């Protein structure tokens, strides 16, 4: 990774870093505007619904709610930049702390799903492209289109009913069985059995996307001269597909998948709801139900910032892998 990143030109890196920082500042501004444009007293959004009058007074003073809008913005901006996203009365903890505690569960879910669906999606996409318009291609396409159309939570419900409730193969909820006090290997197995259904749900939905992207990208690459040259040289078809063509087809796939990180997170939220997986999505819904607005706004900001950071990493990796765009503008 370090050696790849060292190939990114300094100028490009600086430009993208500044761009990302500006975007983050604008996002904080958007958050601020949302809090002030929403109907009702902004103090409820900054403090949460459950506070008493004394606490509201404290928050009013802290965020300078009786001062001008400009100075309120300054106070809000500086406190967010210091990492102070407010305090959650519901969780009796700083919003930042509440959110950080939930990140590992969501990461475990999303990373497992991405790994599985990338592997399966790329192979299926290549095979579909190899037999363009064949029966295989059509079936893979139909599956992909269905994957795009069924709500992710409904896929989750289906798996839940069949494999957890009817067959009893997997637990229905949570990350681990709270009743057992276990550690080490047994704990790992326990978490794994809880992980299977949510990850499968997310992977089914995500594999559709990767499959379709791979197919299109491969079809574009397969008509290029270097592929014809490789075939003419007598390189085996497998090598042509997975060696020569795929390597070139992967770049756009990586970019699109990276730029759609936010979509993956949205899917994760809904899947977490179905399986009561204790990650960011579950937190967001609980915050919504308890009207814990500081947590809700904090989550929105942190998720948006993480999308910006992932976009940045993807662009840098892309520019390192493909020197042609190192100095140019990124076209998504």
């Amino acid at each position, binding site marked *: 990774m370090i050696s790849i990143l060292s190939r990114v030109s300094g100028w490009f890196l600086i430009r993208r870093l500044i761009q990302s920082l500006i*975007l983050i500042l*604008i*996002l904080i501004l958007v958050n601020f505007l*949302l*809090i002030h444009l*929403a*109907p009702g007293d902004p103090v409820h959004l900054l403090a949460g619904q459950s506070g008493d009058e004394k606490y509201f007074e404290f928050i009013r003073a802290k965020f300078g709610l009786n001062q001008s809008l400009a100075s309120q913005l300054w106070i809000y901006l500086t406190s967010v930049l210091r990492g102070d996203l407010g305090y959650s009365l519901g969780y009796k903890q700083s919003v930042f702390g509440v959110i950080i505690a939930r990140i590992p569960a969501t990461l475990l879910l999303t990373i497992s799903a991405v790994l599985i669906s990338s592997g399966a999606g790329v192979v299926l996409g290549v095979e579909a492209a*190899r*037999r*363009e*318009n064949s029966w295989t291609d*059509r079936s893979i396409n*139909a599956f992909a*289109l*269905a*994957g*795009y*159309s*069924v*709500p*992710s*939570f*409904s896929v989750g*419900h*289906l798996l839940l*009913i069949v494999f957890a*409730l009817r067959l009893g193969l997997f637990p229905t909820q949570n990350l681990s069985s709270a009743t057992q006090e276990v550690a080490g290997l047994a704990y790992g197995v326990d978490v794994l059995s809880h992980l299977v259904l949510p990850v499968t749900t997310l992977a089914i*939905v995500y594999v*559709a*996307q990767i499959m*379709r*992207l791979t*197919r*299109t*990208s491969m*079809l*574009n690459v397969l008509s290029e001269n270097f592929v014809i040259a490789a075939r003419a040289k007598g390189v085996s078809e497998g090598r042509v597909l997975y060696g020569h063509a795929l390597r070139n087809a992967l770049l756009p796939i990586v970019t699109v998948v990276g730029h*759609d990180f*936010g*979509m993956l*997170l*949205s*899917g994760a*939220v*809904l899947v977490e*709801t*179905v399986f009561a997986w204790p990650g960011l999505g579950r937190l*967001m*819904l609980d915050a*919504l*139900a308890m009207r814990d*607005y500081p947590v*809700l*706004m904090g989550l*929105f900001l942190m*998720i*948006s910032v993480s*999308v*910006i950071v992932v*976009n940045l990493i993807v662009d840098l990796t892309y520019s390192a892998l493909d020197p042609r765009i190192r100095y140019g503008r990124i076209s998504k």
Partner: protein
Amino acid sequence: MNQETFEQRARRNLIGWPSFKGRRTMLVAVVLLALFAFAAVFAEQIAAHDPHMISDESLRPPSAAHLFGTDDLGRDIFSGVVYGSRISLAIGVTVAVLSGLIGVLIGLTAGYAGGLVDDLLMRLTELFLIPPRFFLALVIAALFGSTFFTLIIVLSVTYWPTTARLVRAEVMSLKERSFVEAARAMGASPARILLRTILPNALPIIITNVVLMVGGVILVEAALEFIGLGDSNYISWGYMLHNGEHFIRDAWWVIFFPALAVSLLVLALNTVGDSLNRALDPKSRIANLDKPA
């Protein structure tokens, strides 16, 4: 790959759809869409019951009296599904048309004007693309209240950037073509060139995009209602899924039929959009459909 002759490929590209089999799929999708549209328009005549009507026949499985069964409050699920298609299609189509209009306006302006205007409009577009659509809609709905009206506004605000970018790219390539140059040479005003010369040629990709957008919007809207951010004055598919989730253990039908309805409607829309897309461009520009939820 190699079994196809150039002539066959050319013909396929010309017709736009590879075989009868493909056209049959398209036909099925169109029929499905027509069915949903019919249900939405004639909901009062088709539904046997008022979907809001509570009865003491709680959680009954599908039967002749209740085709899709009843929910915990004894409400008829078939009627809910029929009326739900009205909500889903109304929101989906309104949002797609509204955000399509905004997107076309911004895309046309940016693509044709170029320079600073283009730069500014595109930065604005990118800004709107950063917060994940679902979260942005969720937060706005949570703060501003989730009525039918706010849902439409919220979703329109989050959906226009995709169209804007697509239209801009299309305009940028179209405006270099010789027929546009010819129009310009004949002294046509920029407005006339845009509306009479460029827009009609960009229309196919705009229509495809709008069709695909309807499906995406329906999914996001269902997801928002599923997590409890719907308009409680209407029975919608998302609401039925939200409410039915509690009875997943004993009464599968409560969530099964609304889920089937969402999936079929979105699948039909995606199939039609995808076929249009392939017919217009075999290389498939819109490979990445929207899967927001």
